[in-house]
Structure formats: structure tokens, C-alpha cells
């Protein structure tokens, strides 16, 4: 110790430099360790984020460059942080105190670090620095600041990164899982083909397009194969057959759990387009009148098929009830969402105020009166049967009330229909109703309440005080 001290004293000019170098080394190791700890705390999270983005990109069909970009960005950020943390910097007194405390140097490093960074020549300071330099050189800093192992963090990061890369590079499909799943024709998939899957058989569609093409090209371009009315009628028959088959499938599908049906595409513009093409072809004068009539029938059939294609539900829950919902004004009012809105309720109230006619005007999705008003639940587009929706129940109940009221009177009554105007209440019309005998047949039973909605119906009609 004394020999080492003497050697250091002989090289007194370097004592301050030695102290600075050793303190800088200690600080570098300390910061490296701290940086490693932080990095290995953040890396698994960053890798998990990349894996998540990769999975999301696969599912949603985003570009595979996105997860790769996130991965690269995370790597660059972590590397940048490591670089910034590892750069040499001035040693603050706080840093020196921390190192001193960990090394158990009793304040010698802190004091020596301050003196080494300040000018001034004093034998006591030189002695202090020389002894501090000896002591700092004898200190094993790597033992004080051992490298961070973080095995679990490294393993987790590697796994996450591999998963992210595998999702990006190995899993097949150019557009990702989402697209590949739907492209495979899975039930409920949102196809992106020219025609919705299952609407027209592929061969029939091909025949149809070929026939239309031949019709549009005209007899001259057919090269001896003039389009005949028989061919068109055959295709028309096939279309009718396909439509019937489709209707049967729909009926079966509706009776099953409809939750699997995420939704067929909306009103098919392709069928409309085909219908329009057929319509245009039927107006080509170069074709024979029989062929033109047959093409017009084809156009009408395609148009019917396009109209019969159910609208796409907005969400799966809506799709569940879509097949069972009664088609009518009340149903149209319901189609806007799960909750009956104010417009539909108001429409029911108006119908009640309308008196004996029992006109129920329900709003459609756009808030406009749906179709032609009619009696009871009737509506312009009533096709589906069934029930189970609150407005339907309300409408049915209202109808029952009105019908019962009219049946009970048994006399000819005149009832004024008053409406509120801007200025006052004025009689705007008189309606005379013919007394009618009570006819139970007029009282249609409300739609059956599904088991899972009975509690909701009970809550709706039976108000708690």
C-alpha cells in the first residue's frame, strides 16, 4: 500500500487524471448497467407491441411493412436510448456520491472527484487525490456494476420478435388472415368477388355473362351462332331455379342460429348491373323480338333477385334478428338499431291519435315515414314474418287497443280529429266510422316473444312505481 502510494505520489500530475478516468469508468459502467436494466425492462414490451401489431396487420390485412416498421422503429428507439445513455458526460456531484456510496469509499471518491475537476494546487489536495487514485485503481468496478443478465426478459423479447417476424414473413396470404379467411368463402365472410358468394352459381353466372355478351355484340358478331330465344329462356329457367334454391337456403338458414351470419353483402349492385345489361340488351333492335322479350324477363328476374337480396346488417347482433323481424313500418323503424328511437314512438302515438283508422306510420332508418301507410303492422316492404322487437309489440298492442275500442262502441260515431296548429287547436277533419260487430278474427295475436326477451318485454310494459 505504501509502495503504491509512493509511486502515485511520484506521478502526482496524473493523480487528478487518474481520479477523473476512474470515476468516469465507474460512471460509464453504472450507466451501462442502469441502461441495460431499463432496456431489458422495455424490450419485451416493445417486442410484444410489435407482435401485436403484426397480428393485427395479419388480421386486418394491413401492409406487412407496418409491423416491420414498428419493429424497426422500436429497435431504433432502443438503440438510440442506449447510445444516448452510453455517451460520456460530466460527472455530477450526485453521481459521484452515488458511486462513492455503493463502493463504500467513505466520501473519498466524491471529494476527490470534485477536486480533480477543479483547478488548484495544494499539497493536501494532491495528497488526497493521490490516495484516492490508488484506492480507485484498486477498486474492481465490474464487480460493483456487473452486467445485467435479464435472461427472462431476453427470452421473452426473442420470442415476441420471432412471433412478429413469423406473422409478417411466414404466414401465407398477401392480404393477411382477414382477407384470406373471407376469400375462402367461410360463412359470413365479407367477399370481395364480383358477385356475392352463393347468390348465383359460378357456372350460371358465367353463362349469363356470356349470353349478355353475345346479345350486346349482336347477331353479326356472333359468327353464325345467333342468340335464340330458347337459350335465353333456358337461362331464365336456371335463374328461377337458382332463386328458388337460394330462397330455400335462406329459409333454412333463418331458422337456424342466425348468429353465424355475419352478413351477406348489401343490395347487390352487380346483380343490378347484370339486370341493367339485360335490360339494355332487350332494347337492341337487331335482336329478334322473342329474344328481346326473353332478355327483358331475364332483366326483370335479375332485378327481383337483386331486390330480394337481404340488406347487410350493420352488426352481428342486428343480423341475428334480421331474418325473424317482421317486415313492416314498425320493423323498418326498428331496423335503424337495437333501440327503438323517438321517431318510431312518436309515430305510434300519432297513430293512436288518429282514432279509429288505426293508421300506424313508422319511421324508417332515415327518420322518414316508411312506405305507404297501412293498417296495423302492415307496411310497404313487409316480407319477413315473426316478431320479438319492442316497437312491434307496442304497435301490435296499440292496434289491439284501437280495434277493441271500435268493436265495443257498436254505434256509428263521429269523431273529430284535432291537430295542434301553430295558433290553436282546430278541427281539421271528421271521420265517420261504421259500427262493427266484435270480431275476434280481427284481433291478431302479437308476435311470439322470444324466451330471452321476455324479461325485457315485461320490464317495458310493466312500469315500476
Amino acid at each position, binding site marked *: 500500500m505504501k509502495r503504491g502510494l509512493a509511486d502515485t505520489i511520484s506521478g502526482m500530475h496524473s493523480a487528478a487524471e487518474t481520479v477523473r478516468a476512474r470515476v468516469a469508468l465507474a460512471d460509464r459502467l453504472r450507466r451501462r448497467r442502469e441502461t441495460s436494466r431499463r432496456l431489458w425492462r422495455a424490450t419485451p414490451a416493445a417486442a410484444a407491441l410489435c407482435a401485436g401489431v403484426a397480428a393485427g396487420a395479419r388480421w386486418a390485412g394491413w401492409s406487412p411493412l407496418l409491423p416491420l416498421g414498428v419493429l424497426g422503429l422500436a429497435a431504433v428507439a432502443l438503440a438510440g436510448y442506449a447510445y444516448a445513455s452510453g455517451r460520456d458526460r460530466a460527472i455530477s456531484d450526485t453521481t459521484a456520491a452515488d458511486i462513492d456510496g455503493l463502493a463504500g469509499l*467513505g466520501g473519498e471518491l466524491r471529494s476527490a472527484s*470534485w477536486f480533480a475537476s477543479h483547478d488548484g494546487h495544494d*499539497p493536501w489536495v*494532491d495528497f488526497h487525490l493521490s490516495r484516492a487514485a490508488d484506492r480507485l485503481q484498486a477498486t474492481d468496478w465490474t464487480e460493483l456494476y456487473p452486467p445485467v443478465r435479464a435472461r427472462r426478459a431476453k427470452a421473452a423479447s426473442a420470442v415476441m420478435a420471432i412471433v412478429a417476424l413469423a406473422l409478417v414473413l411466414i404466414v401465407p396470404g398477401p392480404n393477411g388472415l382477414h382477407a384470406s379467411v373471407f376469400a375462402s368463402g367461410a360463412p359470413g365472410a365479407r367477399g370481395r368477388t364480383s358477385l356475392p358468394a352463393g347468390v348465383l352459381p359460378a357456372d350460371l353466372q358465367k353463362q349469363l355473362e356470356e349470353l349478355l355478351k353475345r346479345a350486346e355484340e349482336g347477331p353479326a358478331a356472333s359468327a353464325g351462332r345467333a342468340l335464340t330465344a330458347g337459350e335465353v329462356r333456358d337461362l331464365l329457367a336456371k335463374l328461377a331455379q337458382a332463386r328458388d334454391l337460394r330462397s330455400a337456403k335462406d329459409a333454412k338458414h333463418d331458422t337456424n342460429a342466425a348468429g353465424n351470419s355475419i352478413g351477406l353483402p348489401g343490395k347487390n349492385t352487380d346483380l343490378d348491373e347484370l339486370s341493367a345489361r339485360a335490360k339494355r340488351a332487350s332494347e337492341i333492335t337487331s335482336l329478334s323480338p322473342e329474344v328481346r322479350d326473353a332478355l327483358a324477363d331475364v332483366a326483370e328476374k335479375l332485378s327481383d333477385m337483386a331486390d330480394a337480396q337481404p340488406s347487410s346488417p350493420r352488426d352481428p347482433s342486428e343480423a341475428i334478428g334480421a331474418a325473424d323481424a317482421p317486415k313492416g313500418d314498425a320493423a323498418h323503424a326498428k331496423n335503424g338499431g337495437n333501440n327503438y328511437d323517438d321517431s318510431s314512438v312518436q309515430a305510434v302515438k300519432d297513430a293512436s291519435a288518429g282514432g279509429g283508422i288505426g293508421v300506424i306510420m313508422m319511421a324508417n332508418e332515415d327518420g322518414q315515414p316508411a312506405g305507404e301507410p297501412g293498417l296495423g303492422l302492415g307496411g310497404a316492404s313487409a316480407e319477413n314474418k315473426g316478431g320479438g322487437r319492442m316497437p312491434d309489440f307496442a304497435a301490435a298492442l296499440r292496434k289491439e287497443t284501437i280495434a277493441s275500442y271500435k268493436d265495443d262502441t257498436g254505434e256509428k260515431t263521429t269523431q273529430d280529429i284535432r291537430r295542434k296548429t301553430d295558433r290553436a287547436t282546430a278541427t281539421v277533419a271528421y271521420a265517420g266510422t261504421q259500427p262493427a260487430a266484435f270480431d275476434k278474427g280481427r284481433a291478431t295475436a302479437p308476435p311470439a316473444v322470444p324466451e330471452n326477451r321476455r324479461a325485457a318485454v315485461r320490464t317495458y310494459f310493466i312500469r315500476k312505481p
Partner: protein
Amino acid sequence: MTPAAVGQSIEQFRERFVRITQEVGRRIVGHEEVVNLTVTSLLAGGHVLLEGIPGVGKTSLVHTLADALDLSFSRIQFTPDLMPADIVGTTIVQERPHGGTFFEFQPGPIFANVVLADEINRATPKTQSALLEAMQDVSVSVGKTTYKLEQPFLVLATQNPLEMEGTYPLPEAQLDRFFFKLKVMYPSEDGMHEILERTTRDAETAVARVVDRSTLMEMRHVARSVAVARPVQSYAIRLTLGSHPDSPYATPLVKRYVRYGASPRAAQALVLGGKIQALNRGQAFVSIDDIRAVALPALRHRLLLNFEGEANEVSTDTIVDELLRGIAP
């Protein structure tokens, strides 16, 4: 001075310090810290106020220290009728051998290297104030003449914290002039055994003079040469400033119970005491721990409590402890 000489100075200082404390320890039992801090104060050129109940060895400590040092010693028993002239001395009329008279200054007991002011709080403030100039400037003014006291000059005062009747609390200016205030605690059971064995025999324990005046002055010089880094000095300053209730470093207890905090003399005591503690450890630098080791005796008598503190009988030791905990090194 070369660095090698510095190393030797440190070793000599440490050796002498240990010899003094060991020699005092031959007669004084169980008060190692008090002895250590008393010697520290002596080497720093400060005065010590020893406080303790009767019979715990305050006066014996001073006697023993004076015996161990080859210095002049005098004792002043402070009583209520003690006058300043009884301390500093007075001018008396002398007759010349060949006729005629002249005034001659007769030095008081304060003209000594080590002065024991026993029961200092029993004298009136007027008499107590006679020590002010001596303690601060190491000089005494009588009439138009100022007399320099010989260095080293050390006042070791004792006071009893229990008997308040017929006593006069030391004024703040007087208290501030004491480098350290040390509390002499009651000895432990083992210490009592040792005391009885040493004092109930016929033979008296002899104390050798281990340090003479020149050596003591050299030690003082060495003590003031120790390097203090600015962060350490800053800590001492923050401790001092933190004892003031309006300081940003003030702790909750200081804000609540302290009327006036420590003076800059406290910071001087902290740094000088820290230097001697460092040398006593064989180091050429002052560490934070050295400052903390002397914080309590350097600050406890410099805090002036407010009414609430006095009414709640708050100990200044508690406040200093909180300062040491609350102010980051």
C-alpha cells in the same frame, strides 16, 4: 510541504490525538465521545460547554485534560457575587521600592491556557459577559489597555441543567461562542464499577503530560490544512441555514419551534470539527460523515426556541436530528 510530508503530518496528528484521549481516558471513565469532542474543540481552537448533572465527572474531565496537556490551568468557581474583575483581573496600586506608587495590572484567572469556568450559569450575566472578549478575541481589555491571552486559550465551562434556582441562563452571544456543547451523561453500570475501582483506592491514577504547547499549536495548524470539497462545505452550510425557520432548507420542526437558527459560527464549527474528525480517521479530506459527526454538539446550543418550543419542552437535539435526516447530503 510535499505530499509525503502531508502523509506524515496526518499520521503524527492521529497518533497525538489518540495519545491525548488515551491519557484522559485513564482517569475519565465511559465518556469517550465527550473526551474525543473536547479534544477536537481544543485542537480547533474552540471552547466547550459541558452540561451534566452533578457528579458525572465534568470538572474531573477538565482537570485531567489540563494535566495531560503541558499548559497552564486555572479554575474559576462562578458564584452570584463574582465580579468581572475577579475574572479578568484589576489594576492595583503598588509602591515603588524607592518611594512613590504606581498602578499595576494584576491578571485574573483568565490568563491561563486552560480555564475551567465551573458552574458558569451561577454568575450574573454581567460577570459572564467578562468572558466574551476573551473567548472570541483571545484578549482582555482593562481600562485603556488590551492584554492578549496566550494561545492556546481554551475555556471549559460546566453547568448543571437541573438546578435553575439562583442561576442565570447564558446569553445567546455567550452560548454562540462555545464551539461545542457537550452533554455529559450518567455512566453505565460497568462504568460505575470502573469509577469505583479507580477512585476508592489509595493510589491515584497519574496522568502524563503528552502534548506541550508548541505541539498543540502545530496540531491546530495541521487541522486547518485539511481539504474540504465544495459539496461537503455546501452540506455544512445547508445544515446551518436549515436551522432558520424562514430558510428553504428548514424542516417542519424548525419552522414550528425555532425562533432563531444557528449563526455562521456554527458552520465554522461544523467544518473545523469535520476536519479534525477526518484527521482522526487518518484522512486528508472531509467527508459528509465527518460533518454529521459534529453536527449535534455544534448546533444544539445555537438554536433559540420560540415560546411554543419552550412550552412543549422541545429538545434542540431532536430538531438537529431532524435536520440531519431532512437535509440531503
